[in-house]
C-alpha cells in the first residue's frame, strides 16, 4: 500500500511520515553468533541521533526501528512484514545480509516500499534494477572488487600460482568471477579453489588443501571470521604466499586477532581494497570524517568500540540516507524518496577522499570506486588513485 487517504482530510497520508517524524526500519543480527555486524546498525542509528540533535531532516526527526533477525533470513521475512504493515515504516534502510535482502525483495517491491542501501555489492542486487527498482545496494560491486585483484596480480605477479578461498554464495562467487575476469588470459594460473559455507566453523582443511596445491599467491574471499582462520591456518602450516583479502575483512580487529594467534609479521604485505576511513589509521585521524565519527561515537555510543570499522560503515550509509531524504523534498513520499535515491551525487565524509556516492536510474551501485590498500606497519595503507569497480 503506497498511501492511505486520511479520513475526511482530502489529502494523502504517507506511511511512516508525520509532521515531526520519519520512521525507518531495518533488520539485522543484534544478537547471536553473527552479531559482529550489529555496529553497522548502531553506527547508522548514532548518526541519525546526531542529525536529530541538529534539527533532523526538514524539521523531522528520524526514528530508526531495528528488528533482530539473528542473521536468519527466515526471521527477516516476518520481521520486515511487521515493520511495513504494523509499524508502517516509510522505508527499509540498511538491513543486513544479501540473502536476507533477497528474501524480502519481492515483497517490498510489490508493496513499493523503498529497500535502500542494502549492505551488499552483489550483482543480484545491483544489476537487477529493471525488475526490482525499489531495491538499491550500497557496497562496491563484488565482481568489480575481484576484477581489481585479478588485474593487479596479472600485472605485478605475472607468474603467480593462485589459490582461492571463497564463500560459496553470491558474495564469494562474484568475487571469484571478477578475479578470473581481471586475470584474463592468466586465469589458468588459478591452481586451486576451495569453497566454504557461511556457517562452517572452520576453514583449516580448505587452507591445507590450498597450500598443497603449491600456490604462491593466496586470495581470501571470506568474511572476517573465516579470513582470520585462513591467515592463522596459513601461518601454522608454514605457508608464506602473497596474500590478498576482500575488503569486507579488513576491520582492524581482524589483524589484531591474527597477530594474537600467530606473530606480528603475519599478514604484512597483504593487499585489499578500501573505501571507508579507518579511525585507527594514524594517517587518517585528522580527516573531517574521522573526527566527526569519533565525536558521534563518544556522544551516542560510548560503550561501543570505536575501532570497529562497521560503525563508520553504518554512519556512511546513514549519511547517504539523510542526503536522499533531503533531496526527496519537504513532504516526501516513498516515490520521491526512490527518485532521490536514484539521483545521488554525494560527497560523503566517511568515505576516503576522492570517492563519492553516485546513482542514476541506470546505476544501482552507489560506490563505484575504491582504493587499493596494503597492510604495513600495523595499518592498511591507502595506495595510489581510486579504481573503478562498476
Amino acid at each position, binding site marked *: 500500500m503506497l498511501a492511505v487517504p486520511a479520513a475526511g482530510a482530502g489529502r494523502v497520508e504517507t506511511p511512516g511520515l508525520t509532521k515531526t517524524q520519519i520512521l525507518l526500519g531495518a533488520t539485522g543480527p543484534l544478537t547471536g553468533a553473527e552479531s*559482529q555486524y550489529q555496529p553497522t546498525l548502531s553506527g547508522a542509528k548514532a548518526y541519525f541521533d546526531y542529525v536529530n540533535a541538529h534539527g533532523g531532516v526538514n524539521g523531522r526527526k528520524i526514528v530508526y526501528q531495528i528488528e533482530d533477525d539473528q542473521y536468519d533470513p527466515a526471521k527477516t521475512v516476518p520481521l520486515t512484514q511487521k515493520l511495513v504493515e504494523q509499524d508502517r515504516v516509510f522505508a527499509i534502510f540498511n538491513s543486513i545480509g544479501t540473502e536476507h535482502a533477497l528474501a524480502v525483495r519481492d515483497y517490498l517491491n510489490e508493496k513499493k516500499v523503498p529497500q535502500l542501501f542494502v549492505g551488499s555489492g552483489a550483482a543480484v542486487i545491483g544489476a537487477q534494477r529493471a525488475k526490482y527498482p525499489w531495491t538499491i545496494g550500497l557496497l562496491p560491486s563484488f565482481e568489480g572488487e575481484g576484477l581489481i585483484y585479478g588485474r593487479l596480480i596479472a600485472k605485478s605477479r605475472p607468474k603467480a600460482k593462485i589459490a582461492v578461498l571463497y564463500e560459496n554464495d553470491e558474495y564469494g562467487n562474484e568475487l571469484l568471477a571478477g578475479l578470473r575476469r581481471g586475470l584474463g588470459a592468466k586465469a589458468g594460473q588459478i591452481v586451486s579453489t576451495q569453497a566454504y559455507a557461511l556457517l562452517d566453523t572452520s576453514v583449516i582443511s580448505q587452507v591445507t588443501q590450498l597450500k598443497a596445491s603449491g600456490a604462491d599467491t593466496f586470495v581470501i574471499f571470506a568474511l572476517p571470521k573465516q579470513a582470520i582462520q585462513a591467515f592463522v591456518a596459513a601461518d601454522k602450516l608454514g605457508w608464506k604466499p602473497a596474500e590478498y583479502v576482500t575488503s569486507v575483512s579488513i576491520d582492524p580487529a581482524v589483524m589484531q586477532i591474527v597477530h594474537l594467534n600467530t606473530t606480528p609479521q603475519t599478514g604484512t604485505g597483504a593487499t585489499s581494497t578500501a573505501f571507508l576511513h579507518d579511525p585507527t589509521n594514524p594517517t587518517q585521524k585528522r580527516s573531517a570524517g574521522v573526527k566527526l565519527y569519533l565525536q558521534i561515537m563518544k556522544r551516542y555510543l560510548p560503550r561501543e568500540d570505536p575501532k570497529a570499522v562497521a560503525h563508520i560503515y553504518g554512519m556512511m550509509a546513514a549519511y547517504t540516507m539523510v542526503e536522499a531524504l533531503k533531496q526527496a523534498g519537504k513532504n516526501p513520499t516513498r516515490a520521491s524518496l526512490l527518485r532521490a535515491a536514484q539521483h545521488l551525487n554525494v560527497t560523503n565524509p566517511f568515505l576516503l577522499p576522492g570517492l563519492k556516492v553516485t546513482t542514476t536510474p541506470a546505476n544501482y551501485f552507489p560506490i563505484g570506486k575504491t582504493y587499493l590498500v596494503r597492510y604495513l606497519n600495523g595499518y592498511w595503507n591507502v595506495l595510489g588513485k581510486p579504481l573503478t569497480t562498476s
Partner: protein
Amino acid sequence: MKRPLRAVLVAAAVLATLVFANAALAANTASVAVSHTPMVLAGSQSTTIHVTIPQATDPMAAINIFVPSGYGAKVDQAAGTNIGSVEATALSRDTGLTLPLSGTVTTDNPTAHTTDPCSPGTNAAVWILNLSVAGQTLAVPLYVNPTSGAATALGAYNLKICLPPPDVPIGTPGRAFQGAQVLDAKFTVNGILTTPTAAGVPRWETLFTPYNPGKGTPNLVGTFETRAFVPLPIVLGLQAKYNKKTRVYTLTGKLTEGGQPVSGTSVAIARGATAAGVKKVASATTGATGSFKNTGKLKPRKTTFFQATASAAERDYTATGCQSPLPATVAPAGCVSATLSPWTAKSATVRIKS
C-alpha cells in the same frame, strides 16, 4: 573426505580430548596483581587489577576480589559514568582462536541488578566491563559491596565477577559467547579507591571458584586463594652534591617499597639543561639498604637537572606470600599464588649550579 585428512582430523580430536582431560586433572591456578598509579599513600588516581588464568585451568565460575582494610572507596557515581578501562584476552573454544577484548568500565544503576544470580539484592555499586571484540560488546557486571560478617577478615570491600561456562555443549542456555574462556584481564579504575594512609604491604585476597569441567556447575570445593601484595609507598629519594674544585657531582638516594629497602634494583639517572628535558645518562644499582650512588663531572657555570627512575615488574611472591593460607572452609584448594605489585617510581628533580 580423503583418508589422510580424516586421519589428521581424528588425531587432532584425540589430542584435543587429551589436552582438555589433562586440564581437568591438573591443579587449578591463577594469579592476581594489583598496582596503583602513583604508588603513594592516601592516593586515589588509579588502581589496576591484573588477573591471569592459565588455559589449562578449569574455566572460572566466580572471582571474588577483596580490597584490604585501610582502603577507601567512592562508589556513588551516577549510572553511566566512565570510571576506567579494561583489556583482556579470551580463548574462543568455538574457533580455537585467542581473542583480544577491550573497552571501558562504566557504572550502572544497582537497582537494575537486584535479581542478578551472581549477586542478588541491593549492591553498593555495579560496574560494567564493556568488553569489545570486532564490534561485538559483551557487558560483564562487576558487583561492589562492603564486606560483612566473616568476610571482613578478608578485606573491606568485595569485588565479584561471575563468568558463564565456556565448556558446555554449544546451544546450552547460558553458555559463554563463542565458548570464550577468559585467560587474562587487566582493568583499571580511576578515582575510586584511596590507598591506605600508613606505610605497609596491604594484602589483596582473591577467591577463585572454577567450574566442574564440562558441567557448567561451580566446583565449590575447588575454590582456591591467590594473594596480591601491594607495597606502599614506593619512595625514590635523590640528593645532589657538587665539588666546585674537582667539578665532580655526587648523586645519592634510596629506594624503598612499603617502608622496606629495595636491593639489587637498577636506577636510571637522567640529566639535562631543563627539568623537563632530562635524558638517561647513567644507571646505578641499589645496595642492601636500598641506597645508590652516582658520580660524574660537570662543566662550570651551568645549571644541570637530575632525576632518578626505577621500576619493578610484576613479581612472583608465592613462596613467602602463601604462608599461613586461609582455612579450608574458605579456600578448600589452598593458596596457589602470590604476587608483588609492579611499579614505576620517579624521584623529584634536583638541580646543581656548577
